[in-house]
């Protein structure tokens, strides 16, 4: 997808659709099959698998507690697929351009910049995680569930420090808030079609199919 505005819009619509109902989640899955590079859009398969395992555990607990765990699992998988697609398709400056276009040079610029920085940090975090895993192995310590806590501690600590340093650098350069950017977007017919279908998925999630066909009975 070329246009970051439509990509973000699709992400919002599809997330709401998937969260609303199982029908919506199924529609999102169909949309994902039709408009994304599917498995090629998944950059970090191990991380995706780990998240899936987490969802399965939560769904299992919900089922045991008498809630609809299966519904939760289906909906969360759909949201996860949308998230991984947005993450894979995003390019540097996308959020800044889309944010400024949507909310202007003050709030929009700031929100876009923060989102862009967060995406950059997410890319760095996966590389840091890989290094931590290597370093733990070099120490002769086996990698397992117990290693996640110290690794997470380091990642959070580093992320906070980097955020602090970035804020200081911005302040040193005289940044207060907002900024000017002239975003340029390239929209294709396929982008428009994907956006329309995402909106249809949301409608489908809130209004069951039977509601459309009741007139024909």
């Amino acid at each position: 997808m070329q246009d970051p505005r439509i990509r973000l819009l699709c992400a919002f619509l599809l997330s709401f659709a998937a969260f609303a109902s199982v029908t919506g989640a199924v529609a999102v899955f169909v949309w994902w099959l039709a408009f994304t590079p599917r498995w090629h859009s998944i950059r970090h398969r191990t991380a995706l698998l780990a998240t899936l395992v987490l969802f399965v555990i939560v769904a299992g607990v919900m089922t045991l507690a008498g809630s609809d765990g299966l519904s939760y699992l289906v909906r969360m998988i759909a949201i996860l697929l949308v998230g991984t697609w947005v993450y894979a398709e995003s390019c540097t400056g996308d959020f800044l351009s889309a944010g400024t276009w949507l909310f202007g040079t003050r709030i929009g610029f700031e929100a876009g910049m923060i989102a862009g920085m967060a995406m950059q940090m997410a890319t760095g975090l996966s590389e840091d995680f890989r290094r931590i895993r290597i370093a733990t192995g070099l120490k002769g310590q086996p990698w397992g569930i117990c290693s996640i806590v110290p690794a997470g501690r380091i990642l959070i600590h580093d992320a906070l420090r980097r955020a602090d340093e970035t804020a200081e650098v911005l302040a040193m350069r005289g940044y207060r808030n907002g900024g000017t950017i002239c975003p340029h977007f390239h929209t294709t017919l396929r982008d428009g079609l994907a956006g329309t279908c995402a909106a249809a998925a949301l409608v489908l999630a809130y209004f069951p199919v039977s509601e459309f066909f009741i007139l024909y009975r």
Partner: protein
Amino acid sequence: MRLVLDHLTACHPFWSLVANGVFSPGVHLVSGDVGSGKSTLALMMAGLLTPESGTVIRESIPQMMLSFQFPEFHITGLSVAEECRSWNLDPDAVIRSAGIDVAKETPSLSLSRGELKRLHLACVLARDYDLLLLDEPFSSLDCPGKEWVCRQMNKRAGGITVIFTHEQSIFPDIDHIWEIVGGELADCGDMPGAVVHWQHAPPLVKKLICTGRSPLALTPEGIREAACRTRG
């Protein structure tokens, strides 16, 4: 004991690297510009990254350690004492060796980057590894810190030590110099002859060579001796 790089290649969107060479016991310096592939080479030499082609042969190297540029990656202990124990080392001895003024109970991540680097290097250098790969060991350190690392490295008895750095001022007693130039690992040779072929040589070393006073060692003492040498 030796480490052989046999037609090793690595590709990156912005650079590529070809490496050939034999690393025998001693202290090796691998210099190169920022982003030239030093860290990638270190990972491949440690066997932690599969090269595009070629092989890394480690002969009689049962114990190996790679120290990353950022010491945080190695931290697994909540406190300084826990961290030292995770290396099977006595916390008091490590703190004394690192020369940092901290209590054993201090949370390890509350140390400054420089203190953490010293603590990490003190742990690494306290153990006898057959192959020790140090990626930017001087980063985050002030001059006394760099001198301390050099002293600790010089104490290492045997084994292969490879230092990947773009440091330009303070070095330990280097035996062999390598450098990454134009995407290739070039062998400058053994010291003291290597400095003549070393393109990434610090300006002071280049100046000394130009005036016919090539340093015999890259240590501060070696540089001082060359600078004070009388041309005859």
